[in-house]
């Protein structure tokens, strides 16, 4: 994966888009390297499409710069950018056959007829739609239309491909299948892809790096495992995967043990990562699957609580544990041994590996 030494193919620097007095995109800076699969992840309205629109040239940035292959393209017309795009809901030309849809970018580039026929056939093969060249878009299923949109966006071999929630309209099963195909395509074509989704699982599965957007701002950038294991703030911790947040104030801290007073008033003695001082307000993130329920006779544990509820979900069991007065923790355990677990109402001791608990920035401290 790209590191600082090779020049980025696309650089967004302090990109802004302001509608009236609304900041749809606010100070976004990303360096994207050749061949990278990068995902813009964020809830609806977080500015993902607006970022893509500025890269594609449909919107001009209110501020900031876009450098593509070493050239500033802020004010370049969209047709001069040579960037492929797959639109949300595909935007296939309804009056043209599949062949003509895919041939369109080639015709615009004045490619000769024989070459057009060859290239279209090649890309139709790639997306396994060879027999559909003469159909109209409305005669294809959603998944097939999706593949046509993809074919049309790559047939002219753009160095960069933008995909705006391309799988959003498909049902779950088809979506998972398309994710795999997309990943294969990426490996095969080695194209730089910027993929937009609001689905965190999809982002985790596909991406080399994920850019988490919220209210037009970047919350965190990093590879999937890093975002999952080391979220830097509450938004990322909550948006990617499930997490338990322990919020409170450090009452005292000596060597590696601190006394944490949770917001519900209860006090707990536990090991906190990093340097904390008495009086610090902190927010700790603990993933449910990192929590280990230990036997009552164990002495090596971090917290005690009361089991409120158990849900059996096939391969896992989910526990809801109350610690302190009303702080609830979710824990997850693989259903490996058919051991009889604790029952609701039982006191339980919970433990975790020391590196599993993370200090993160909280929005509400």
């Amino acid at each position: 994966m790209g590191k600082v030494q090779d020049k980025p193919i696309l650089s967004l620097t302090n990109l802004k888009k302001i509608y009236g007095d609304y900041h749809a995109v606010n100070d976004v800076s990303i360096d994207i390297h050749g061949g990278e699969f990068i995902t813009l992840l964020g809830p609806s309205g977080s500015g993902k499409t607006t970022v893509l629109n500025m890269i594609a040239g449909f919107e001009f940035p209110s501020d900031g710069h876009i450098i593509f292959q070493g050239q500033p393209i802020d004010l370049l017309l969209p047709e001069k950018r040579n960037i492929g795009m797959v639109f949300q809901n595909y935007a296939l030309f309804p009056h043209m056959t599949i062949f003509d849809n895919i041939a369109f970018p080639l015709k615009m580039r004045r490619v000769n007829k024989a070459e057009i026929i060859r290239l279209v056939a090649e890309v139709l093969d790639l997306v396994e739609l060879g027999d559909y060249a003469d159909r109209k878009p409305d005669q294809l299923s959603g998944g097939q239309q999706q593949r046509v949109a993809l074919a049309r966006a790559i047939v002219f071999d753009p160095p960069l491909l933008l995909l705006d929630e391309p799988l959003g309209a498909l049902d779950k099963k088809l979506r998972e299948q398309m994710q795999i195909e997309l990943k294969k395509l990426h490996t095969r074509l080695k194209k730089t892809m910027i993929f937009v989704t609001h689905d965190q699982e999809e982002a985790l599965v596909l991406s080399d790096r994920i850019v988490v957007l919220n209210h037009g701002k970047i919350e965190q950038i990093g590879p999937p495992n890093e975002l999952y294991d080391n979220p830097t703030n509450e938004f990322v911790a909550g948006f990617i995967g499930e997490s338990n947040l322990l919020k409170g104030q450090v009452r005292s801290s000596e060597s590696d043990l601190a006394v944490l007073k949770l917001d519900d008033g209860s006090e707990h003695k536990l090991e906190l990562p990093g340097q904390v001082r008495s009086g610090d307000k902190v927010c700790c993130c603990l993933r449910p699957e990192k929590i280990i329920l230990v036997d009552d006779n164990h002495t090596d544990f971090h917290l005690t609580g009361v089991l409120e509820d158990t849900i059996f979900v096939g391969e896992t069991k989910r526990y809801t544990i109350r610690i302190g007065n009303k702080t609830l923790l979710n824990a997850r355990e693989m259903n490996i041994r058919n051991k009889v677990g604790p029952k609701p109402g039982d006191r339980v001791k919970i433990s975790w590996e020391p590196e599993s608990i993370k200090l993160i920035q909280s929005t509400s401290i």
Partner: protein
Amino acid sequence: MLLVAPLIIILCIFYFYPLLKLFPESLYRDGHLSLENYNHFFRTPLYTFILFRTIRIAAETTILCFLLGYPTAYLMASVRNPRITALMMLCIMLPFFTSILARSYSWIALLQTKGFVNFVLINLGFIERPVRLLYNEYAVLVGMVHIMLPFMILPIYSVLRNIDTRLVKAARNLGANSREAFIRITFPLSLPGIGAGVMITFILALGFYITPALLGGPSTLMMSTLIDQQVNRLGDWEFAGAIVVVLLASTILIVSIFDKLVGLDKIYK
């Protein structure tokens, strides 16, 4: 398309039904069943000339309405500010609040020898003495275009408005400049609206009466004014019936030729 449907129904009731009532009438001459009325029509050069003039003026009206109406509809559809769109729509619809009669008379006021147009032309030095602008085909054409224009604009506008804006974006993204995107995407997708507008304008223009009567005068007879002359001046209902049937048959013939060429079924897809 919804804008057009009621129009078609109104056309059927108030236009075709009375025409069909007149058909039996046309088959009698002096109380006897005969084709004499039709014979008379097609053997008299003046009448066939009037028929072709009517078709030609209707076609010219349609073409002019298209040339003026399409850009207008396009502009209306591309404006993204709803208040400006509403204002433009009001301007298009405003003429409907005034009677066709009043609008035709206002053209008389503008075009007459001592009218506004002559006044301006003289003062700008283009002409020395007033020219006769009224009671010829051009006057009829101007008046007809003015009245028919909304019937062209509205269906085209409604189709243009519903074209997904992302299609043009996609075309631009794929390398088309704005002109190519228009030619290859917007225009072909607006064909159903053009088809509907052309049909309505042409059919209405073929049978239009008030404007030719007022602005064309007796020297520029069209089928409708000819029918009026036969009925109101000469009281010849039987011959008038034959003219009506000829006009109807021509309309149907031309519409079906148009259908063969363009495929009207595409309009309703």
